[in-house]
């Protein structure tokens, strides 16, 4: 029982920290993009201000229980996903599921969000969801191929196990996975909805798409969801290719802190990379994005998969 409570406490601590990191990253992101655009930009803690404001609003408007599902599903789903991802080598529930489970858990918030957007009745929201789903279909193909390459190489589908097996050498140092990581990083660009793949939320075209009608606590929780996705996707990438940021293995208190710090730096690095691409590119059209992922990205991913396959069977 005590073990169970300790586990719950650790889970609560890590998810809280992860969410806070996500909110901080939203502020850092706006700052970085502003600096690239030669603007001053908002302070780095702007994300906290925004979310606090939205969650404490007195007037909240709902359009029925299906609309509220967006709030419940999106936040629940993203926190649940974070529970299944090893953070800095700490496996919260990481041994209870695997990479496929994480892929499908990531669909829970997206679907909840889509339901709420659909129930808001705004046609722009529906178009935004359509674009988001088409983007999902696009970037998932190269991403799952790289993931399968990792699974075949390490002969496991558990993310915790993959992190464990990268002790000696991070996956990105193995030649085929350099290619795979490059592909997965572009898929990450789509997952994070950063330019040139910010098609679903394109503010100038479809009035921010899915969130067009959200406000107050609903929008606040969707911003929390957005913060969560930044952490979840970058952590997924770091876990798969960069050894989860684990550099010390002795299990001391210090190792936890060091691993956490390395994890933080790595996801910040990945996120900054994504932001720099975001700041320098205009937006694709949806069919261009689709072709980009299914033609070039998928081909490169497949080359890395075949490469790995040949390495494994020989």
């Amino acid at each position, binding site marked *: 029982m005590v073990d169970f409570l300790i586990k719950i406490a650790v889970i609560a601590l890590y998810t809280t920290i992860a969410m806070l990191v996500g909110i901080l990253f939203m502020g850092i992101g706006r700052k970085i993009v502003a600096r690239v655009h030669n603007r001053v930009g908002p302070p780095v803690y702007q994300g906290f201000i925004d979310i606090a404001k939205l969650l404490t609003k007195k007037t909240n408007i709902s359009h029925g229980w299906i609309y509220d599902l967006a709030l419940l599903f999106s936040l*629940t789903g993203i926190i649940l996903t974070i529970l299944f991802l090893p953070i800095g080598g700490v496996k919260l529930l990481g041994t209870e599921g695997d990479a496929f489970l994480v892929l499908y858990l990531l669909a829970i918030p997206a679907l909840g969000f889509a339901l709420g957007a659909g129930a808001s009745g705004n046609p722009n929201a529906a178009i935004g969801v359509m674009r988001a789903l088409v983007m999902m279909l696009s970037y998932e193909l190269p991403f799952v191929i790289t993931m399968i390459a990792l699974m075949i190489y390490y002969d496991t589908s558990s993310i915790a196990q993959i992190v464990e097996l990268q002790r000696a050498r991070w996956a990105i140092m193995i030649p085929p996975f350099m290619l795979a990581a490059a592909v997965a990083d572009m898929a990450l660009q789509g997952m994070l909805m950063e330019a040139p793949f910010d098609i679903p939320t394109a503010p100038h075209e479809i009035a921010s798409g899915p969130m067009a009608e959200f406000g107050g606590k609903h929008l606040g929780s969707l911003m929390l969801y957005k913060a969560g996705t930044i952490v979840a996707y970058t952590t997924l990438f770091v876990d798969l290719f960069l050894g989860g940021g684990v550099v010390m293995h002795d299990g001391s208190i210090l190792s936890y802190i060091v691993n956490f710090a390395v994890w933080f730096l790595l996801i910040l690095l990945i996120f900054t990379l994504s932001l720099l691409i975001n700041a320098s590119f205009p937006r694709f059209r949806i069919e261009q994005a689709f072709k980009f992922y299914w033609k070039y990205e998928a081909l490169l991913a497949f080359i890395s998969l075949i490469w790995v396959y040949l390495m494994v069977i020989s």
Partner: protein
Amino acid sequence: MLELIFTALLVASFVTLFVKNGRVAAVISLIASLLPVAAIIDWGNEFGLKIFSFGLEKSMDFPIAGITMHFSVTALAWFFGVMIFFLIPPIMLFSYSFFEKNRGFFPFMLFLITAVFGILLASDFLTLFFFWELMAASSFILVYMGRDRKAIISYLSFSVLSAVLILTGIALIYSQNGTLLFSNVAFSADEVTVSAIILMIAGFAVKSALMPLHAWAPFVYSKADEPFVAFLSGGLSKMGYYGMFLMLFALPGAKILQQYFDSTVATYILALIGAISAFIGTLLAFMEDDLRKLLAYSSIAQLGYIAVGFGIGSSLAITGALFQAFNHAFFKSVLFLAAGAVAYRTGKWKISELGGVAYKMPFTFMAALFSIFALAAIPITSGFAAKWLLYEAAVSNKYIFITPIMLIASVGAFLYSFRILYGVFLGENRHDDIKEAPLPMVAGMFLLVMPLIIFLIFPGYMLDMMHSALVNAGIGTVSHTNYVISTGMASYNTIAVVVGMMIAMIPAFLIYVLRKHRNIDFKDNFLAGEPYEIYGHISMHAANNFYKPIEDVLMPYLRRGATSFYMALYNAMGRVSKTVRRIYTGLSQDYAIYVAVFLLIIMGWLIW
């Protein structure tokens, strides 16, 4: 006592033929459809589902017209029985409200159930074929009642194709063995047996709508009565996979194929066909505007996964395939029934004409939502465990082509799921004058959703149920407890997911509860309080050509499909027949000339 069940079903079928009132016929059918369920529960004592027992026999020989029909229940048949017969009472409950008058649905449905019962119990090929044809005939009449020429012709021709393939296979097996009993048939790796196996699998694949033998499904699914289509997609399509399992694993077909080709190429092709079915079916599904056709393509896609599992052939894969078959039986029935309930209230099938139904029919929406979770394999229902097993199997066998195709097809399922959710149930409220579907319909749908939730938390029960079928076939089972499935590569703990979800829900729930909100009609919001009527000419529902951007990219590649091939074949046959018909001019002197020419040829041949 077994013959009593057959007799009772046939008598009920005969009685309902003369009952004009749909309600009475539905009640009779409901009671009759509980008989096979009772039989399944009784046999469950041996195969892992202990509820009650009244001592039904497990095998029966029935001599008729000089031959003996052999019946016996195997673990495999029992598992498929659980999958199929538990569907029928809820469907009958649904039909109670769906059919005002008895126009022939009930008698032929009962006849169909009898045939399915016979197929599952058959323990020789002749009995199997006999009941297979009874099934084809009665389902054909049910299709015929849809009165759609394309549906009737395509179903008839593909049923005949299936029958010919299966009968040829049986004949070849008989010529090799001299016996038709499953227990006596001994397969050997020669050309005749191998071609028999391949022919029979192709014959069964017609029923399970595997590409490229799927062309009948979209026409039939979109034109027949909904309760029947629910059973056709949920139940009957599994009969094809029952036959495949029988040929490949219960009889050692897979091993023979492997010996003959000296590799796993034949079963690999089956898996590849399944994966391509899943992929193409998904792409076709999200471009479809007719709700029933969308569900038909989705059926083709979801059934493809089962073929992948059978093709891979490891214990993981087959467990996943059977689990997927079970899930599909339930969630696809619910979706078709929900489509039927929506059409019952609105009279519309086109997604672009529907919209906002969920606000008036919340319970139908909830049932449909849960089955969509299962369809999209989201881990809120048991749909995920099945697909997970299949992915694990494919990755652990290092299938580098099949795994990505399967995964991306499953992502595509989100796309058409949302098309259903948004296009039909959400968005602009276009139907202010409808109300919730009648209670029996809603009850039927919720009964069918229940297994999806039970097996989410306890997938181990499902694995226990198929345990003896797999062991009898010599496949071996996946190690599991009630809620943890472990494979060589990873494990999946359902309790961790459920408990984790409860913990993860706390912040969202607190935000939801602590900040009060008020409900406002969405029209007030984005029209800024202006009267809705002045915007009456603007459609607020973005459901027409929903996936247009991606359609533009993909359509050029999909235009040359199997369906267009069959249509070309159909048209060519028509032209040939027209040419042939010119011989029959209707003038007696022409016929006299034909006879004379024929006689001359005969004479010439004799003299020569």
